[in-house]
């Protein structure tokens, strides 16, 4: 387990229990007590907790950094990690907009010989410092309030391209109306991308299921692979099974030491 993961889990435990003990945590995580003390030091500097004799308590005025504690963030990271394992060396992938795709980009930053085409400026920035990833950004105009590009310029710039795998994160998935995104421009672009490839992957976090959005992009059975977590609602799972959709659910089976 990485330090960062351990810190997150300590935060979670502390938020729940309000107080922790060093010996307790060292046994829970299977690391030495001094490691835990160092972790607590870090968290104290952040103002998250106050150290006590042999442990720590939650600081009364602790401002919880929403990024790190948000279970949704953890979920998205899990999905992104699994999706990253689907990407092989030398492939060309398309990354749509949205927070899950952004995390996927972060997971791919260390890869070699990889081409990423995206319409999301945040993703481009995330990959800006990745030395061996070839990044291509579509043209088009910004969708108000987001970092995503769409429109005729975007369509123009992916014409003639072919992808090994496009990763898409629709904002809505409905049993009847299928996957959808909030704007027509984005939907148009996604449809253009999916038209030229077979192996489309949909990345779905818990916010997506049962939500409607303006512009439909594909039926639920039309995207052959989905990556999600065990929060996948029952009726969706049954639907995917009935329509032969490959469902990957990401787990985080914290095995100290075994994770790469």
């Amino acid at each position, binding site marked *: 387990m990485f330090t960062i993961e351990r810190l997150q889990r300590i935060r979670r435990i502390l938020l729940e229990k309000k107080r922790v003990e060093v010996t307790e945590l060292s046994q*829970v995580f299977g690391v030495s007590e001094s490691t835990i003390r160092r972790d607590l030091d870090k968290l104290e500097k952040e103002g998250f907790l106050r150290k006590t004799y042999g442990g720590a308590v939650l600081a009364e005025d602790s401002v919880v950094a929403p990024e790190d504690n948000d279970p949704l963030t953890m979920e998205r990271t899990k999905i992104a990690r699994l999706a990253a394992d689907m990407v092989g060396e030398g492939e060309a992938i398309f990354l749509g907009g949205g927070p899950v795709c952004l995390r996927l980009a972060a997971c791919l930053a260390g890869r070699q010989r990889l081409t990423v085409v995206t319409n999301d400026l945040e993703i481009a920035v995330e990959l800006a410092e990745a030395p061996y990833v070839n990044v291509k950004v579509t043209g088009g105009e910004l969708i108000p309030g987001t970092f995503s590009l769409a429109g005729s310029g975007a369509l123009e710039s992916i014409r003639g391209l072919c992808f090994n795998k496009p990763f898409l994160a629709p904002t809505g998935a409905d049993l009847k109306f299928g996957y959808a995104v909030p704007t027509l421009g984005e939907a148009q672009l996604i449809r253009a991308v999916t038209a030229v490839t077979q192996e489309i992957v949909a990345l779905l976090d818990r916010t997506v299921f049962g939500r409607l959005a303006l512009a439909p992009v594909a039926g639920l059975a039309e995207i052959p692979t989905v990556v999600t977590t*065990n929060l996948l609602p029952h009726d969706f799972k049954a639907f995917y099974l009935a329509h032969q959709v490959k469902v*990957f659910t990401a*787990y985080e*089976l914290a*095995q*100290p030491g075994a*994770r790469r």
Partner: protein
Amino acid sequence: MSLLELSRIGKSSAGRPVLQEVDLVLEAGQGHILIGENGAGKSTICRIIGGDLCQDQGELRLDGKVRRFASPREARALGIRVVPEEQAIFPHLSVAENIFIGEEPSHPWFPPIVDRERMFATCYRFFREYGIRLDPDLPMHLLGLGEQRLVEILRAAMTDPRLIVMDEVTASLSEPERQMIFGLLRALMAKGVGVLLVTHRLEDLRHFGDWVTVLKEGRVAASGPLAALSLPEIVKLMARERAPACYPRLRCKPGRVLLVVKNLSRPPILEGIDLVLRSGEVLGLAGLLGSGRTALARAIAGIDRISGGEIWIDGRRVTLKNPSDAVRLGMCYLTEDPRGKGLFLSLNVPANITITDMDRVRDGFFLNFYREELLARGYIDELGIGLPNPHATTAQLSGGNRQKVVLAKWLYRSARIFVLDEPTKGLDIETKLDFYNIINELTRCGAGVIFISSDLQELRGMSDRILVMYGGRLVGELAKEEATEERLLMLAMGGDPT
């Protein structure tokens, strides 16, 4: 007029058709073989003939008369004897008592007590006539598995049968026992008894029977004289062409070697097994019941002692004296529904999970229940173990959740070699999907998985490589791409690997 005639038999279970328009004709004195893959509907046919189930559509005729059995007793009264797949014996009664159970000969006078002399005399006479070397007075539990099965067949054979139905009875027998049973059946057939033999083994087709019916996905794929069909043709008829599409296997690059087995033997069940398991790999193990696949899994997991060969873990040779040796080396073994096997049913879930490494929840002499709960909570949430209430014992969980608890306890123990023996058997398809994804995650974390399954679709879908066992030996290794159903079946059933 035929002895037994099934015409257009249909049967559904839970809304899913199990049998569809099945026709089958069995003449008196005929040895009829019913062959088909797991789940093709063979056992359902046996149960319909035996009166255990009633068909939804179609007719069953015995001696030309339409019959509808309301109970096995009615079928029995008409001379139908079924030897079921699952063993049904009274271990503490004698062989003779087991044979005559329910139909003991009684003294003619009052009170009608059991005429033991006549019972034993009948046994002796019958045994001598057919060359059966068994002592009728011996308690059943002293016999080997093969002999116990023989007694079950004798129970059918000695009570004036007209038709004997045997559901995969030969699977767990040794060759001499099998030959003895075939000899007995042939003698009965000569007297006009019809025999319906359900089997999985091609070898049986070489030694027995004159008619064969091939069942595929609840329908009759072919039916004809055994001489007219070659063994490869039969296998081809059994195999489903459909490629497994929706199994979510995420292949990892195989890492370092975790486990090496060299020339492992445990006569007469296992002979000369060699295998290598790498981290990040799912190694499928195919084989029929009685092929030795479970014996191999148990030997690797240190449950059964081996008599020859070597086991290497992480590049070091190890001697596994007992399961805890294997556990210490990061190995774990998971069976189908761990009811009573692998779980403490009267304890709650956290206790079951943390039991594999008590040191982490112990403060000196006492257990720290708060820490136990805290540690277990992570696994319960992550694996989605559904608890009816927070303090539920594992006895109150469903089969799928119980199976997840067993996985959780080995994850907690940081096991790296997972030997999964039919882990998804009897689970609903949605829980199976969870299981497949957990297997993915195990390999992503660097574990190696040995995956045993009778469901060939599942095995092909989830394995990176498949080893096939037959008669206690490895008879083939197939890469995922070349493992067609036909090839797997051919190897597993003891056919020519071409």
